[in-house]
């Protein structure tokens, strides 16, 4: 990328918005995933009895099973949320950055 393009884009407001918004969003979702997964794994390591409790007194199904399935579904839902937001809002910002860049080049 040319130096002058870099200078134009880094001052672009849409670019600043994109980087800060998406950065925060990615980190938030990553932390949710890591927190849930590591809580799950560390529960297994430190206190597996929590997961071995039956969901009701008459059931053989333990708490661990719906929780495990929840982690799988959560992983899918989080990727869906990210993709939805990125393919809409964030790509719109990227498009604006592109437009502004072309405008600045033509103006110059």
């Amino acid at each position: 990328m040319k130096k002058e393009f870099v200078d134009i884009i880094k001052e672009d407001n849409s670019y600043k918005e994109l980087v800060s918004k998406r950065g925060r969003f990615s980190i938030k979702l990553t932390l949710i995933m890591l927190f849930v997964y590591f809580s799950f794994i560390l529960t297994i390591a430190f206190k597996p009895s929590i997961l071995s409790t039956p969901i009701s007194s008459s059931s053989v199904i333990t708490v661990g099973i719906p929780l495990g399935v929840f982690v799988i579904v959560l992983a899918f839902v989080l990727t869906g949320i990210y993709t939805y937001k990125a393919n809409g809002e964030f790509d719109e910002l990227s498009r604006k950055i592109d437009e502004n860049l072309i405008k600045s080049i033509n103006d110059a």
Partner: protein
Amino acid sequence: MMHRVLLFLIISSITLFATGIIEGEVTKQTLNVSAISMFVIFVGATLGITYWAAKRTKSPKDFYTAGGGITGFQNGMAIAGDYMSAASFLGISGLVYLKGYDGLIYSIGFLVGWPIILFIIAEPLRNLGKYSFADVASYRLRQKPIRILAASGSIATVILYLIAQMVGSGKLIQLLFGLEYEIAVILVGVLMILYVTFGGMLATTWVQIIKAFLLLSGATFMAFAVMSQYEYSFEALFSHATEIKGLDIMSPGALISDPISAISLAIALMFGTAGLPHILMRFFTVSDAKEARKSVFYATGFIGYFYILTFIIGFGAIVMVFQNPQYIDYAKQALEGGSPILGGNNMAAIHLSHAVGGDLFLGFISAVAFATILAVVSGLTLAGASAISHDLYASVLKNGDPDHKKEMQVSKIATVVLGIVAIVMGIMFENQNIAFVVGLAFAIAASANFPVLILSMYWSKLTTRGAVIGGSMGLLSAVVLVVLGPIVWVDILGNAEAIFPYKYPALFSVTVAFAAIYYFSITDYSHRAKEERENFEAQFIRSQTGIGAEGANEH
């Protein structure tokens, strides 16, 4: 000319397969006709696709990325096809069959890397790279040392993974089709060489898509067949299973015993997935970042759904295969007691397919298992070949300006060589304990590939010196710790006690890699390092906006 060669090879491989059948008839009593006919249909169809793809594979870009024109949905399916190996299908359902809940814990570990890949890696990877993840790692760093490092990490991962797949495939095919082990391994190797050399990424992608579709359909049918017997009540299925195997199967068992192992395994699976070269390569087959995101979304859905199915299948095998006189290995029972099943626990899903759908469905699932192996080894070989031809030959030897025809030739030669290596290793390792191999592949991907990749994308102060020293130390420590750990040092080499007490080294080797990259980068005061840091801004803008990124071919 090339097409005539291809036709010849197709015919000769079918002949090879046919002779295999005849030999199988002589040596084995169980010859599975429906399995073989379905497999022949699959092979015929995929070779047809390879023939079609060969005509469209002209440039290196076609070969490495199918021209960049695969859609997000197709790529998601292909990623799932790449990731759901026979090891995960048979291995995880076998683990559920044996230990119940532990199988679910294990499969979750293989899934959670995917969201992380999407949130932090997929986009910058797509925006910065062209054919391989080394493009990204070396974007603003010195080409040669970084390429050599990334190619070593890739080739090591690919070969280890290939060994595991080849040995598994040889044994599986021997059991399912009644072929000799060596013939099975050679057959897999030859077919994979055909797909990749002639059809490149386009053929590989379609083989993976078809296989993913077949595997998901077959597994869905099996899970529903099991559930239908219990009127779709999980309570009924699980309570029947606990009557047979006891309540322990509903709770975490011995898979994860101490916190260090737990975290270490989690890190290996998460960061390892994000460092697998054949997976990362798939992001260059789509046209832009938008399609790359969709790929991960679909792939995560397919893979997650598949793991839920394998859990039901494992429990289905507990109720329908365990203690079923039809599937008991009486010879083994006489020696060891208990109720071992024919072919070992990993065959639980295969026996279940017979229990729910008879010979015909057994044939279908066996053919799917074989197709699965073919799809996975093809993706691996392609990634290995591109590390050799794109990273080592074109970028290191030819300074990034190769003759495209020559580069294609090198990639094809590399494919054939890797195929032969895989066959030879597959035969050599037949009777070896290869339990450590996939774990080591993930440890290397997590400790050598992943840290360099992620820091090259996000950390402005990274320098070539830091990346090379840190990445090499990650690679080395992963290998050394696996060798000194309980699986190799005690189980294989026969020593009394492991020097390194944990089975999974990732927690330590990944830390070593990050720490070394950090230290050797910030203490790098060279002129070159200053330039590399200054170039970060332009790289970051491209990685965020996609301005200047590689597009798709106009086809």
